[in-house]
């Protein structure tokens, strides 16, 4: 049992990406291919049904792994389309104007309200992408106009989106862990609120309050283009209303209102936007959305292939076991580091691959509180390079080219979140008693 093949795969990936300038997704897939072949995965499929046992060629595994993210990829394209439409039809500038007029002179309130606003779609869908590319795109202009630089704005949006993923009612990492141990997703509201609300307030203030306090709300308001608002009035808000209603309805009336799925909801929002504001040319907007989403889709496909090869070759199991074998004093640290680190390739993957055995290893402590803490640590993975999904998208909505710079600025709040998650997990017996649990 050894992790040296994983080390070699990572080294090869880093060489391809940083020295030979390969795109991230391709570099990951190439590292997966090389790692698989090096560890004896066959180049061609051996006879199915033959003895000794048959084995699929590496090609099937590369493709199969890449397909795990097909649904998030659809959401991304649809979200980029929605963002493009509301930017061009004037809704974005109208919202900026409203937000600055309402809260521009109260920086602390503005920071916290925007944090909650960004988190909202994540709370309903469990997806950071949904937050970053919808409410994140809306929150970015007022923050920028109040003087927050693009990188910090990106970090603000990314962190709020992650906390939205963790906040109730829908926490996908927790649901995945629950499915892995056959535990009902019940009783999570209080633990998740305890985890998220203080962090959301603290990180919003940490990242934005300073700049917002010294910003000039009046001047910022003057710079906003009020044209679309004067031309179209409240009608501009319709696309936002459409997606909010379609996202909230199935949660409020699950027996009667089937979910249409995020991609369709976002496309319907975007289509509504074509008729409610300034004229938007659909085809260029759709092309633009696809071009913006493609690099990230490539990264996700590469990540999928990489994890499949890790599983196939036993490196995934070795990794989980290595953390579980740490002495007790280091195990907590191992959990706090490995969950976000593995989340760097996939936050939901981290919840499934590491979250489930970690919860089983910690059985005996109140499971709901521990699972909630683990879900926060796993969700932080969306901030971690190389994929840095939340930072990658947040950079795009703020116009920042270097998403690593955005990721760097999330480090402080991410550390705070990890410490808070550990504290809640460690104090879970006491918290559970306080909450009236057995």
């Amino acid at each position, binding site marked *: 049992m050894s992790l040296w093949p994983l080390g070699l795969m990572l080294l090869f990936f880093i060489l391809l990406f940083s020295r030979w300038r390969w795109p991230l997704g391709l570099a990951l897939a190439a590292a997966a291919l090389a790692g698989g072949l090096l560890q004896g995965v066959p180049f061609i499929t051996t006879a199915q049904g033959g*003895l000794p*046992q048959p084995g699929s060629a590496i090609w099937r595994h590369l493709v199969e792994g890449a397909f795990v993210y097909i649904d998030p990829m659809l959401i991304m394209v649809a979200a980029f389309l929605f963002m493009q439409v509301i930017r061009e039809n004037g809704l974005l500038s109208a919202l900026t104007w409203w937000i600055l007029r309402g809260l521009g002179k109260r920086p602390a309130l503005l920071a916290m309200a925007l944090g909650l606003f960004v988190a909202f779609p994540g709370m309903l869908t469990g997806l950071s992408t949904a937050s970053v590319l919808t409410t994140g795109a809306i929150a970015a202009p007022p923050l920028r106009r109040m003087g927050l630089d693009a990188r910090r704005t990106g970090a603000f949006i990314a962190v709020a989106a992650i906390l939205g993923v963790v906040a109730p009612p829908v926490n996908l990492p927790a649901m995945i862990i629950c499915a892995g141990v056959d535990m009902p997703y019940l009783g999570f509201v209080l633990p998740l609120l305890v985890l998220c609300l203080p962090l959301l307030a603290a990180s919003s203030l940490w990242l934005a309050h300073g700049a917002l306090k010294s910003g000039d709300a009046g001047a910022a308001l003057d710079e906003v283009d009020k044209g679309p608002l004067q031309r179209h009035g409240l009608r501009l808000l319709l696309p936002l209303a459409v997606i909010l209603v379609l996202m909230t309805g199935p949660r409020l009336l699950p027996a009667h209102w089937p979910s249409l799925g995020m991609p369709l909801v976002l496309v319907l929002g975007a289509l509504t936007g074509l008729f409610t504001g300034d004229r938007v040319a659909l085809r260029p907007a759709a092309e633009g959305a696809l071009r913006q989403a493609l690099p990230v889709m490539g990264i996700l496909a590469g990540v999928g292939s990489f994890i499949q090869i890790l599983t196939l070759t*036993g490196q995934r199991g070795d990794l989980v076991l290595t953390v579980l074998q740490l002495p007790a004093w280091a195990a907590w640290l191992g959990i706090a580091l490995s969950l976000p680190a593995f989340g760097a390739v996939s936050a939901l993957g981290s919840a499934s691959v590491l979250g489930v055995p970690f919860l089983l290893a910690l*059985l005996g402590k109140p499971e709901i509180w521990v699972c909630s803490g683990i879900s926060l640590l796993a969700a932080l993975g969306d901030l971690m390079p190389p994929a840095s999904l939340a930072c990658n998208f947040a950079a795009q909505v703020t116009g920042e080219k270097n998403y690593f710079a955005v990721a760097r600025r999330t480090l402080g709040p991410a550390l705070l979140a990890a410490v808070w998650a550990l504290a809640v997990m460690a104090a879970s017996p006491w918290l559970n008693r306080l909450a009236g649990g057995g």
Partner: protein
Amino acid sequence: MRFVKPISMKEHARALALLAAAALLTVLAGKDFLRQHLVEDLWPSPALSARQWLSHWHAPLKGGRGDSEVFVFRGQEEGGRVLVLGGTHPNEPAGYLAAVLLVENLRVEAGEIWVLPRANASAFTATDPQEGTPQVLALPDSLGQPRAFRVGGRATNPLDQWPDPEITVHRPSLQSLSGVEVRNLNRSYPGRPEGFFTEQVAWAIHRIIEQEGIDLLVDLHEAAIEYPVVNALVAHERAGDLAAAAVFGLSMNGVEIALEPSPANLHGLSHRELGDALPGLQATLLETANPGQGRLRGRTNAEQLLLGKDPCYDAAQLIPGMNKVKVGPEGLPLAMRVGRHLDAVRELCAALELTRPGKAVRYTGPPTLAELDARGMSPWLRPVSGLDQPRKAR
């Protein structure tokens, strides 16, 4: 905003090369994916009474990948009726192969045994992404010729049901589950006639039990070694006495198995939903420990599933409480896991007669755990012409 910029010849060439590479990858991988749609034939015992399709109980499934064969064995004497489900999760091969050994060896003397070896037939046509599961297990038949048995995924093939919602809302309980569970047959009960594909499969199984007056349901599964409910018999509360008698019978034969109550607040499971919905039914589920399934497993391949040996689980044994089943140097071979299932089915049938007089189900033919431990599965796999056995794509 338009995103158009001039494209150089070099970029054109690079794009063409990438497209060609993608096409090649599609062909190479596609061959493997298509191969998994070839359905291996099963060779029922001569005592087979009837062969039906699942679509007989829910017509919309007819001819599709959700349709699957149901094998019926009737005894000379009147008695109870038992339905055995294999392949609810095709990535749990002991469940499937135990059902296969029943189909190929059963001779029922009293009562009836209905076997649905590929309960989620669609899930046999695709493996789960990021799990690296082997597609096929090859087992020698009684003449030593290899027979291929597919290993699929935990969930319905996305070609049959896609996309997944972000959140699965189970009907009728309205319990929220993660999105992928929408394709999990054992989270889709009691099923809906006009629901999603997987719910329709669940509905067809529900209808078999309801229309054919099934007395006992046995759903065959496997679970990871670190999973708390493993080497266990899970029973709906109405099946408690029957399950306790079966556990006692097994322990008398040296088979240790835990008796677990069906959780009341975890919905969609066969024992919970069908047990609740059908008052005449005693609903049970069996779990064995499969080293090829857990998050701690090492290299994932067919040998691991067959031999049940994994160095990672050997190492995990040193972590207190991690492995819920002791893994000895002999591992947890597939033949042993299949044997546990077959012994448990036998004891459950015996317990049915004990707890509900007049509902006897007695049979001979399938091997016991002791026989499988000693001789492996081959003697009970009927001989066919090896790899070229007739197969059809679905």
